[in-house]
């Protein structure tokens, strides 16, 4: 069965690009428009990987990661941050919140696939 990736981003075009990249490699992609939507969708159906933006309305990426890590179901699920933020301070905050990795936008579809394959196979 195809692995499920939850992509959380307020930019529709980024969601589209992530979905297009991952679907072409056989993954199933669930889209969420912000952290709150992402949290609800993560509760609704289990995801094998969460790919989230940082700056979003309603709930940002770091808060989403903290909330997910608080749920037993997502304690060990890989969570990647995909954001335009690239400062070391933000990365440390991400690591502290429980992020598995940090990807700075813009992403190269091929490299995104490599990272996704590395963390969930």
């Amino acid at each position, binding site marked *: 069965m195809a692995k499920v990736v939850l992509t959380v*981003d307020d*930019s529709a*075009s*980024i969601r589209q690009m992530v979905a297009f990249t991952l679907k*072409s490699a056989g993954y199933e992609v669930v889209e969420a428009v912000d952290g709150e939507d992402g949290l609800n969708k993560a509760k609704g159906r289990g995801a094998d990987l969460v790919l989230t933006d940082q700056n979003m309305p309603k709930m940002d990426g770091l808060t989403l990661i903290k909330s997910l890590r608080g749920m037993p179901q997502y304690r060990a699920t890989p969570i990647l941050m995909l954001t335009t933020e*690239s400062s070391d301070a933000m990365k440390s905050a991400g690591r502290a919140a429980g992020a598995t990795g*940090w990807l700075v936008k*813009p*992403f190269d579809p091929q490299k995104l696939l490599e990272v996704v394959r*590395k963390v969930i196979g």
Partner: protein
Amino acid sequence: MSRNAYAALIAALVVITATVVWLADPVWRVAAVCVAGLVAVLAPARRGVRVEPPVEVARSEAIPPEVRDIVRDCSGMSADLCRSASSDLERVKDLLREAIEQLVASFGAMNEHIQTQRDLALSIVRSMQGEGEGLQFADFVMDTSTTLESFVENTVETSRIAMSLVETMETINRESDAMLHILGEIEGISKQTNLLALNAAIEAARAGEAGRGFAVVADEVRALSLRTNQFSHQIREHMQGVHGSLTRANESIHAVASMDMNFALASKSRLQDTMRHIEAVNREMAEAARRINSHADQVGTQVNQAVTALQFQDMTSQLIEHARQRMAAVQGMLRDFSGNLSRSGDLREGLTQAMTRLKSAALKEDHRKGAVSQDSMGSGDIELF
């Protein structure tokens, strides 16, 4: 006129100049408004802080009411311009978002179509090269060619055998002729024996009673020679029958030996040509498929690059949003500043409040700075913790 009043006048003039520039060329609209607005507010405020205590502005009361009105009106107009610029930025953001969504969808579809095309090309080549099920055309031609080749070889062998049979038949004919010749000799002997028996019978008759016994022998010898002649004739008839059969067999063998093999040889050559042609077509098909494959890979790479590049929308829309927020802050400040001036007429109080608002707006800058730090479209770093 005090230095503050002088500064306010300069600021007002800058604002007016900016407005003129803006009217002349819309491109300068945003820049002119920002510069004019900030200069109008900051120049007097800074001077107030650094050179003279702001309290002196209130004390001096040297600012004529008409200057104050001009400053108020300029602020009001600048606020309106800021609002227009802000709504323009909002529209730019929306247009970009819509266009990029369509572009991404188009690139996605393009990539899918290219992949489908590649799969089709590969399946054609696979079926041409006989990887599918059932008898393939190339196999069929190959089988036919092999069959025809063995047929031609058999025909050549038959012809060779027929040629040797022709020689054997000639030998048999010669033997048969020799036998007929010998038969002629036998018939000659038989005739002479008959003559001798006849002479003996005559001599026996002349001898009278003494030759009576000899006459009986002579008659018997004559009868034997007649029977010999009769057998000889029968043998000759049979031999002639054999000779006729041999002649017909000879004709048939000649016909087989000289049978035209050109048809078989031509067919074989045509089939070999067809085989070579099929092999060439297969090679070309494989090459075409390989090229289609590599083109599909290249399109995939290009689409990936396009997808990376198209993400500029995510960054620019954040940057545009930041610019819009700054514009909104300046607009709010200008609007309140002109509102305050209308109500209280206190320029110093108005400027102090404007400065406070700008300071609080400046505090948000640190937060914005980190959000988008990229200055090129190369793909970003990846770090796994």
